[in-house]
């Protein structure tokens, strides 16, 4: 009992009282207190308030967030609007000067900070999710599972993180562009032989029409095709290329031809919309699929449609950010997993866990109701320190040109632009100093708040 009493209040009371209803847990302090009982969170907040520096930094962060969210509309400038006023130093017109295209740097910085902060927060969130789950399972399960899970962490640790992130991000980009592209690939032919024979011999108007549109050389190859099963790969690739070329043509199908095809509902809808631009390719692909339903596979599934509609809006910035979230989360969860695992490992052996096990609590309940709440402090502290490191990593990636692509900007890519403008002939210092200052002060504030929280929440830290 005295052992359990050392733990955070509600936890100690609950395990101490055993079968007592949970509503009473908070109302019974573990030890007689001379002053009114405060919950652990209230006590922590009291102590945090006394750390004036951390408090100031917290307020600064809030101010930055508010300005970044609501400031840009107040500016007379738009982030992408170019002007003739190139490389203006900071002045009343442009508080932070202008860049190579005469764009106002302040507005671009605010938009950039939006992206940097968002990536930092969500990336830290991703690392929190994976890290806590991984670490707590490893620590709680122990034994063979523990060593298996943690060996994997060790191995990931010993890969250079930059290579890991680059490959991960480009892989995700590749998968998405493959999914969202209406282009034909060899794997889309369900019956390449049948398709080739149809284009060679069939007298139906669609095949005849397509045949006339094929290139001279391909028609020759087609005529020479002997119906071999399966057709030679170069021939298939040529067919895919020919059809791909045709997909771009707005006049590929006309009303008379479409009438002969049995259309799916979504094809009909799209046909009636008379789309333009990129959508024509998709429409032609759908029509082609409907014209040869047993020979060309349906490229679109509900999954690809869902993924592409959610993640490929007009700007494209969201897609890149999604990859950044995943990529950065994927490298930064390792430390979190190690920390959580260590904590869980030591808590698992404590008496209050034994007590609740004796009372018949399930593993899930023990882990999530009894162990993890005791790790929260450490997790929160580490999380506030993860955010700046993710922001830093994101700006590093954008500096490499991997993260946010122009004309979108993040603080990192703005700094990279500024760094590129330093040469012995003229120094455009504001392009480096302004975004650098915003980044550095934000990181500084996050670190101070994290330090303040650690003093309050981390049981290992003294005072």
């Amino acid at each position, binding site marked *: 009992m005295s052992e359990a009493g050392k733990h955070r209040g509600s936890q100690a009371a609950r395990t101490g009282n055993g079968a007592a209803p949970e509503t009473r847990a908070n109302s019974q302090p573990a030890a007689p207190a001379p002053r009114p009982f405060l919950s652990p969170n209230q006590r922590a907040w009291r102590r945090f308030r006394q750390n004036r520096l951390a408090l100031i930094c917290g307020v600064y962060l809030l101010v930055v967030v508010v300005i970044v969210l609501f400031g840009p509309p107040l500016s007379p400038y738009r982030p992408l609007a170019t002007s003739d006023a190139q490389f203006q130093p900071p002045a009343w017109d442009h508080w932070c000067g202008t860049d190579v295209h005469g764009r106002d740097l302040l507005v671009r910085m605010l938009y950039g900070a939006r992206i940097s902060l968002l990536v930092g927060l969500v990336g830290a969130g991703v690392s929190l999710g994976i890290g806590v789950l991984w670490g707590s399972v490893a620590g709680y399960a122990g034994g063979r599972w523990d060593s298996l899970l943690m060996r994997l962490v060790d191995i990931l640790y010993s890969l*250079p993180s930059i*290579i890991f992130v680059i490959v991960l991000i480009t892989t995700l980009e590749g*998968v998405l562009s493959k999914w969202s592209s209406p282009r034909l690939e060899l794997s889309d032919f369900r019956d390449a032989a049948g398709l080739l024979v149809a284009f060679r011999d069939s007298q139906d108007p669609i095949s005849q029409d397509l045949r006339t549109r094929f290139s001279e050389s391909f028609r020759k190859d087609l005529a020479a095709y002997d119906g071999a099963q399966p057709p030679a790969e170069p021939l298939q690739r040529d067919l895919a290329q020919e059809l791909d070329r045709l997909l771009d043509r707005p006049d590929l199908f006309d009303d008379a031809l479409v009438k002969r095809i049995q259309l799916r509902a979504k094809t009909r809808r799209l046909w009636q919309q008379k789309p333009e631009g990129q959508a024509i390719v998709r429409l032609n692909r759908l029509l082609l699929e409907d014209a040869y339903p047993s020979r060309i596979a349906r490229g679109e599934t509900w999954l690809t449609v869902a993924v592409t509609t959610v993640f490929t809006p007009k700007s494209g910035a969201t897609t890149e950010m999604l990859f950044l979230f995943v990529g950065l989360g994927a490298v930064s969860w390792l430390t979190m997993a190690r920390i959580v695992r260590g904590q869980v490992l030591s808590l698992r052996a404590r008496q209050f866990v034994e007590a609740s096990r004796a009372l018949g609590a399930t593993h899930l309940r023990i882990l999530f109701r009894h162990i993890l709440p005791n790790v929260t402090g450490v997790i929160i502290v580490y999380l506030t320190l993860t955010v700046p490191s993710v922001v830093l990593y994101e700006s590093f990636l954008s500096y490499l040109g991997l993260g946010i692509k122009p004309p979108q900007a993040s603080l990192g890519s703005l700094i990279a632009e500024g760094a590129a403008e330093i040469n012995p002939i003229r120094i455009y210092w504001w392009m480096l*100093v302004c975004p650098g200052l915003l980044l550095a002060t934000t990181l500084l504030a996050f670190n101070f708040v994290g330090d303040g929280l650690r003093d309050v929440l981390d049981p290992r830290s003294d005072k």
Partner: protein
Amino acid sequence: MHFLRRLVFLPLLLLVISFLAFLFVRLAPGGPFDRDRAPASPEIKRHLDAKFHLDEPLGRQYWRYLADLARGDFGPSLKYRNHSVNDIIKQGLPVSMTLGALAFGFALGVGIPLGFATAVRRGEWPDHVGSLLALLAVCVPGFIIGPLLVMALAVQWRVFPVALWGSPLHAVLPTVALGLYFAGRIARLMREGMSHTLAEPFITTARAKGLSHTAVLLKHAFRLAVLPVVSYAGPLLADLLTGSFVVENLFQIPGIGVFMVNSSLNRDYTMVVGLVLLYAALLLVLNLVVDLSYSFLDPRVKYE
């Protein structure tokens, strides 16, 4: 015994890592023979694939790679086709290692005294100033401080050369740009370790025995207080020795760090796997060294 077993397991671990890296780099779309924006034409790709055995099944390719590796051959670079990976590493690594070692020395030389001093004068003004400096260093990444240093000291006042690698003078700015962040990290770790140690009962005992202030701090406290720094220094050294993209790029230094980034962007498969192995081997060995030094520094640490 513990260390012997880990030493035996080390090549095994490297084998697993090489296998994972080998598969992992092939996940990314495109290939090493693609041009800037267009994929390589099918004929060229077929020929090059055949030349570098990329058309074989993956298992056989990996086996071939291992066989080469056993002879100390990392294979040919797929992007820089006149060079082998060994060549590139042999050219770039010494430069990166020199710069990395300098930056490591700078980080330790600045970080440890700073952390030590701030912890000893805890709560007084030297602590506040020193801690703020350390935190500032942590919050101003190399890609900000590097260009700033160039702007002020190289372009404006012309104290140091702007870029390139050669004389000791050339090394000053890159060393500071690379090492400053880590100096801040180390100062923070050192301060924390020192504060924890100074609160321990054995320090009180040492003082009670009448040891001088300096002897307590240097002989008794420092040994334990430096432990967090030691465990951080292992991976850090591995990181620094294998080069930094930002600093090498900024100062036009012909090191290996640039290849870390470019090889994975270029899908230069052999190069990536070679660099991963290099880094992993360094890291694993250094971690072993860290754990060894742990048992020297802290008599309470026992490995089984």
